[in-house]
């Protein structure tokens, strides 16, 4: 199982999803209509490392974070 966390203003509780790549995780998350708009504008980290490639494979216990647009300072 993959744990997916929604950071900052998304305000959604973490979910656990079965997926072996980010691509698979993406298609499962998109089933949730509420998330669609967020996914367009959010970046992604796996186990706190930012990633930019859908083909990354996932293993059980991985933690995926969904990061909405930022504005520190």
């Amino acid at each position, binding site marked *: 199982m993959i744990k997916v966390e929604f950071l900052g203003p998304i305000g959604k509780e973490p979910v656990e999803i079965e997926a072996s790549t980010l691509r698979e995780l993406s298609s499962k998350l998109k089933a949730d209509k509420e998330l669609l708009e967020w996914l367009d504008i959010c970046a992604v980290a796996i186990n706190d490392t930012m990633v930019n490639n*859908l083909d990354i494979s996932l293993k059980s216990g991985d933690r995926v974070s969904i*990061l909405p647009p930022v*504005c520190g300072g």
Partner: protein
Amino acid sequence: MELYEGSLDTKEIFGRWLDEQSNSNYGAYIPFVGTIRAEDNIDALSFDIYEPVLKAWFDSWQKKAEERGAIVKMAHAIGDVPVHTSSYVSAVFSPKRRVALELIDEFVEDFKANAPIWKYDIIDGKRIYAIDRSNQMDGAGLLS
């Protein structure tokens, strides 16, 4: 990297960083102090931070700075920060003026673009995500 609940004690931070490096032989010290502006009827801004990714972002900048003989520092507020108080201080120390001036610019701009910090307006006690002033991080939209 330093995170504080509420407004920063800017003078304390400025002075402590200065003292820490007083014998390091850096010729240039450039802090950047960010203060909450009174605008759009806000009483305060409020911040969420995701610390593990912020730490990784900061460590990568510390490495970039070291390659140029410099160091970077950063402090940020968590939670509510009233107008006219400070939420953010970053700084560069460098032997050389040119490196320091270029580095503080790049460091602050990349901070605005990629530090995992979310900003909210506090208006009449409500906390409203400032999405219009927020920036999609590098790689945004990957899962869409």
